[in-house]
């Protein structure tokens, strides 16, 4: 049975088509990663699945319950940590969690116990009786996630949960998600980081401008692209062209733009040696060279032929 099943979701805001027919599905106890650049429609999809927003068209079921027809039942089954930590700044961490406990009707005493338990689990016990206004960004995020877990929801929605976290908090949060999934929770997670999807997601859906443009396991996605990116900076156009034809002999895909020659390969080490030899033989001397993991940008470039575009309004926001 699918814990999350959405078919043909569309949503329009004025002239903006935020979703143009999106299908999403996550089996129980798995993590579905939703990747996409700014403005792709990730948050809109999450808000529809969390009953905060109504889709214009399409249907969605969470744990088998229709979100449009029985939203209140769906709310019993989900936890949401939105893109921006929604904690009450004037309440302490403990009071925030107790409030959610009371509002999910678990009873005063259970809410109190659960709050203490979650503060402990998210290493907030020491700060638990301070107003959340005094928390750092990372602490707020942790509190926000804790609030989403208060009533032990079987389905969890995390909208860019690690944006703005330092590397160690990020790893910590990944650990929490893995524990939850091990206990049978289904997680839908949006992210802009391929690395995060790679680490956590069983399946990944890439959306762009409101449509699904690719899906599969993280491995499949990366294989469409190569596991490693080798980049040479070659400012001189004629030399760059020569480099491109020389690199065509190396297994992998070559592309690039103004002064950059990019090679996506599966076996990084051997390919790097081949590439260097090929360039040397062609008499090309790159100004700089880099070897790196593919990023979401690369996936995008490969999938759509256009780089991740940031709509002007998003930049302003």
């Amino acid at each position, binding site marked *: 049975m699918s814990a999350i099943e959405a078919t043909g979701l569309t949503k329009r805001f004025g002239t903006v088509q935020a979703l143009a027919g999106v299908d999403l599905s996550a089996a129980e*106890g798995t993590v579905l990663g939703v990747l996409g650049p700014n403005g792709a429609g990730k948050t809109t999809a999450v808000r529809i699945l*969390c009953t905060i*927003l109504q889709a214009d068209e399409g249907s969605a079921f969470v744990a088998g319950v229709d979100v449009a027809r029985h939203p209140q039942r769906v709310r019993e089954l989900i936890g949401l940590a939105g893109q921006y930590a929604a904690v009450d700044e004037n*309440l302490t961490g403990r009071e925030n969690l107790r409030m959610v406990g*009371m509002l999910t009707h678990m009873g005063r005493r259970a809410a109190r116990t659960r709050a203490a338990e979650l503060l402990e689990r998210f290493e907030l016990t020491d700060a638990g009786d301070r107003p959340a206004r005094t928390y750092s960004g990372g602490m707020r995020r942790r509190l926000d996630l804790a609030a989403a877990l208060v009533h032990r929801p079987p389905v969890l929605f995390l909208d860019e949960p690690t944006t703005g976290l330092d590397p160690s908090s990020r790893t910590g949060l990944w650990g929490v998600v893995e524990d939850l999934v091990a206990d049978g929770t289904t997680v839908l997670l949006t992210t802009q980081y391929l690395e995060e999807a790679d680490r956590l997601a069983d399946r990944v859906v890439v959306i762009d401008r409101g449509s699904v443009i690719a899906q599969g396991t993280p491995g499949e996605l990366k294989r469409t692209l190569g596991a490693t990116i080798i980049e040479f900076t070659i400012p001189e156009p004629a030399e760059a062209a020569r480099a491109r034809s020389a690199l065509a002999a190396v297994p992998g895909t070559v592309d690039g733009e103004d002064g950059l020659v990019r090679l996506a390969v599966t076996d990084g080490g051997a390919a790097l040696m081949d590439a260097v030899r090929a360039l040397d033989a062609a008499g090309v001397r790159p100004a700089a060279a880099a070897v790196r993991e593919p990023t979401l940008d690369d996936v995008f470039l490969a999938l759509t032929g256009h780089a991740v575009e940031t709509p002007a309004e998003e930049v302003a926001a």
Partner: protein
Amino acid sequence: MSTQAMSARAVIPPSPGTVERVRNAVSDALVITWRNLLTIRRLPQLLVFATIQPLLFVLMFRYVFGGAIQVPGVDYVNYLMPGIFAQTVAFGAINTGVGLAEDRGKGLIERLRSLPMARSAVLAGRTTADLTRNVLVVGLMLAVGFAVGFRVQTDVFKLALGIVVLLAFGFALSWVFALIGLSVANAESAQAASFPIMLPLVFASSAFVSTTTMPDWLTPFAEHQPVTAAVDAVRALVLGGPWGTEVLTTLAWSAGIVAVFAPLAIRRYRLG
């Protein structure tokens, strides 16, 4: 995935019955009230700000304009204070909208909307907390009034009734501003959108001067609007004279305002 895990996860909670729904709605509203009152306790300056404006009005009308305003047969300070009380609750109602807009801006309402709580609770909890705050603010203004020479001409029970009527009126107005607070982009807009509504109601009323001194075109409005009704009710109760009609008119206005604006505000909340 084991079949056991599946059946455990597939449990759909049954729809609660009416009794339980009502009980949850009340309990949810109380939780939100608790949360809002905690905010007031954490930020007592909110309470101070809420009293500064009416306090300035008392000083201005008592000592600056008061000498120039003649109300036959009454000491002006006794005439003024019921108007100040009404002004206090009327402007205080704006806070309902500002607070809601603030919560919405911080994404808090989004989180609450994803919880299985009653759809009315956020609004009912806010208006109830604001009612409690009004009790404190009106209490403070009463003390200010006594300090500048205000004296009740009737008895303490009529004064108490007057305060209850005012609080009911303030509660009703809160729902108007709840609707505004949920409809605008942010707290500043809530404030900006509310003043143009509140100013004419408060100043084109009997709060500070008798409506008979106003130009002919304004009198019909001034005499038949809710703030005038509330001021007249309290004034009759504390200065003496017949008060039944005035009190009933104010309560009718309050009930009418709630009946219209509470459903509109809750609908607005549902829509997001």
